[in-house]
């Protein structure tokens, strides 16, 4: 039976309208779950002392995998034996996090019998995160999960669990089949995902359009972002309905009673000023459009992305550790993304090979590119430089020319120079 600890500070988090994790965990503790009671007890101690109480690391895992389980031990196990071991099991989520109750209940059944009954839906990278297992339970949990068709996600210096927006499954703007790309990459690179062998972590995220709902360009080493090359599709009849105030602005995002002023809200805020509206007809100079999505966002019933679709690939995004946060930089302005994605995978493997050879320990690929230069990276992945790779050309005048770029090479004789110029 679980020993319930007094938690006067955490009890304050049961107040207020937002759902309370304390209330939820308390009801599980009341069912006799010692891990839940002791987690609340240890958390209360942290609230009192303003310091965490988990030991640093701990290498645990399942046989044959180098990741997927994060070791965690309490540093006050005598007080809270139910969380003495509190290892995390990362379970690779189905792309875009669709579930059916029957399947998820079976996973929860394993977790009730063998774990803490607490979990994160979901971790930051996308996994279903089972939170708090004892070491002895890890192999049995893994065996039961795989028997049901689930596998572990990534951790450590490995490919991390790829994630995707819901794409074509429920979004009219998806230019690529994000979930299929995510699944295909996950299945093709199981070895890279489960057996860390790189300088550091590597993340793929797949966004269906430039709205970037999974934040791929901020959060993934390789962002795959759906886009198009032809014209935005316009339904002029629907434009007229917007003009007449029949449809809500931005698909109702501001309330059903907020309507559009097409000239001011759509045309006026277009960043490239490539649109015009004469009161009846909306015109777009597509050659000047940068596909930012603003007009499409505001008029979902009248405008849609084009049909010559593919992806822009941006590489190198990461959080600040160590040299500062980076967003992804454009590497492939446009690539078709059709199964089996061979052209993209060839690029990926060239990229990994370069990073594996050149990356320092704990250096994300974005930092390796910073250190060695974007031009060096482009050469390694055999992509021709293009103005789309930069916001602007360099203003720094110090250009590193290579010897073979200069007629006659670098080798000259000083005697020849002195024949022309007195000392």
């Amino acid at each position: 039976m679980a020993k319930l600890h007094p938690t006067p500070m955490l009890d304050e988090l049961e107040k207020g309208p937002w759902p309370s994790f304390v209330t939820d965990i308390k009801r599980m503790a009341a069912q006799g779950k010692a891990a839940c009671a002791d987690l609340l007890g240890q958390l209360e101690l942290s609230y009192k002392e303003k310091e965490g109480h988990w030991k640093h690391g701990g290498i645990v895992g399942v046989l044959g995998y180098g990741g997927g389980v994060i070791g965690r031990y309490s540093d006050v196990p005598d007080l809270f034996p139910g969380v003495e071991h509190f290892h995390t099991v990362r379970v690779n989520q189905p792309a875009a996090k669709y579930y059916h109750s029957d399947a998820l209940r079976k996973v929860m059944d394993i977790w009730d019998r063998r774990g803490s009954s607490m979990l994160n839906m979901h971790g930051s990278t996308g996994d279903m995160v089972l939170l708090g297992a004892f070491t002895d339970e890890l192999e049995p949990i893994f065996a039961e999960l795989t028997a049901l068709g689930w596998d572990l996600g990534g951790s450590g210096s490995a490919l991390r669990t790829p994630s995707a927006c819901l794409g074509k499954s429920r979004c009219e703007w998806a230019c690529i089949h994000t979930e299929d790309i995510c699944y295909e990459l996950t299945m093709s690179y199981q070895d890279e995902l489960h057996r860390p062998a790189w300088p550091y972590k590597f993340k793929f995220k797949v966004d269906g359009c430039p709205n970037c709902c999974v934040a791929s360009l901020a959060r993934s080493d390789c962002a795959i972002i759906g886009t198009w090359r032809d014209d935005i599709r316009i339904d002029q009849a629907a434009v007229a309905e917007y003009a007449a105030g029949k449809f809500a602005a931005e698909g109702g995002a501001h309330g059903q009673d907020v309507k559009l002023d097409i000239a001011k809200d759509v045309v006026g805020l277009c960043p490239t000023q490539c649109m015009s509206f004469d009161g009846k007809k909306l015109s777009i100079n597509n050659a000047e459009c940068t596909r930012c999505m603003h007009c499409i966002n505001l008029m979902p019933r009248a405008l849609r992305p084009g049909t010559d679709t593919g992806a822009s690939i941006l590489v190198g995004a990461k959080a600040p550790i160590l040299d500062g946060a980076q967003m992804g930089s454009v590497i492939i302005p446009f690539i078709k993304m059709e199964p089996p994605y061979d052209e993209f995978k060839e690029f990926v493997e060239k990229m990994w090979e370069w990073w594996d050879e050149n990356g320092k320990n704990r250096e994300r690929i974005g930092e390796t590119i910073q250190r060695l230069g974007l031009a060096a990276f482009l050469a390694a992945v055999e992509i021709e430089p293009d103005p789309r790779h930069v916001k602007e050309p360099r203003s720094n005048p110090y250009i590193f020319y290579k010897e073979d770029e200069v007629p006659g090479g670098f080798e000259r004789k000083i005697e020849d120079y002195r024949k022309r110029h007195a000392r």
Partner: protein
Amino acid sequence: MAERLTDIGPPKYDSFWPQVIKDNAGKWLYHDILEPGVLLHVSESGAKLWSVRCGGTRLMTTMMVEDICKLADQFCGGYFRFTTRNNVEFLVTDESKLEPLKKALAAHGSLPVGGTGAGITNIVHTQGWVHCHTPAIDASGVVKAVMDELFDYFGSHKLPAQVRISLACCLNMCGAVHCSDIAILGVHRKPPVIEHSHLDKMCEIPTTIAACPTAAIKPQKVDDFKSVAVNADRCMFCGNCYTMCPAMPLADADGDGIALWVGGKVSNAKSMPKFSKLAVPFIPNEPPRWPTTVNYVKKIVEAYAAGANRYERIGEWAERIGWERFFEKTGLEFSHHHIDDYRFAATTWRTSTQFKW
């Protein structure tokens, strides 16, 4: 062991799609947010799908999962999904189930409907004191306190545009909050305290030294122990040394707390994606409800709500009015901590006579 399954990957993405999605994937024509939290998607075929979005706690128990499963069974044939921002979406294909589902959610009490459109959706966050070994703050508790205060914005569409709030409990930023409208970030302010008697046993000294981005760590012998010394003047409290070496903890009740960052975005719509910029350098840890942090976040949201044009994100608003005006409008103090002094610092200094009084 011969039958041990490995490398099978996750269930395929369409394993748990309801029939309407199996039939209409790739054919969706448009969407409409009927009311806060209720989305309608209409297919080229005329088929309709209603999604009811609910906020929730990312950290939950199997009892909560069972509650969600039961509601899904009752109203959605068992089908539901989670969003990237920790919301639950119930997928309804029978319109007559929509109102009864909303009533059942209201009766449940811990699944508030909202999180769509020009409001504040659920906060993306990390583990904090619940599970992490390097946090400067708790995560779930801060999120709960902030969302309680902003609750009204979750179930309404009254802001100029969407506001995305994220929380990371240390500078490692597992939550990658650096491109959020408002980022709540746990920070340390004291250099690591070094356990000389154990450092050589627990850590590899060369990799520990190499881990420091400012080269503040050097080898040192203390008594008879091989250890390291930290040049406090060069320490920026990133915690990377502690990640490599458990004998150099940074956590400290007085040193640790919260920094607030504003104006980031990941969307390409209108303006380019942006990093979040420093608004408040430090707020002490105030468990259990972090009132000062909550108050600052509210101040920022209210100044934005009052001053921004419709469709303008926080960062777009701040850039239009100027950051000098942002500090004036929000009442936040500008200090020397707001001026960058690391790698890309000079790119943020003002190199123009254009500014406002």
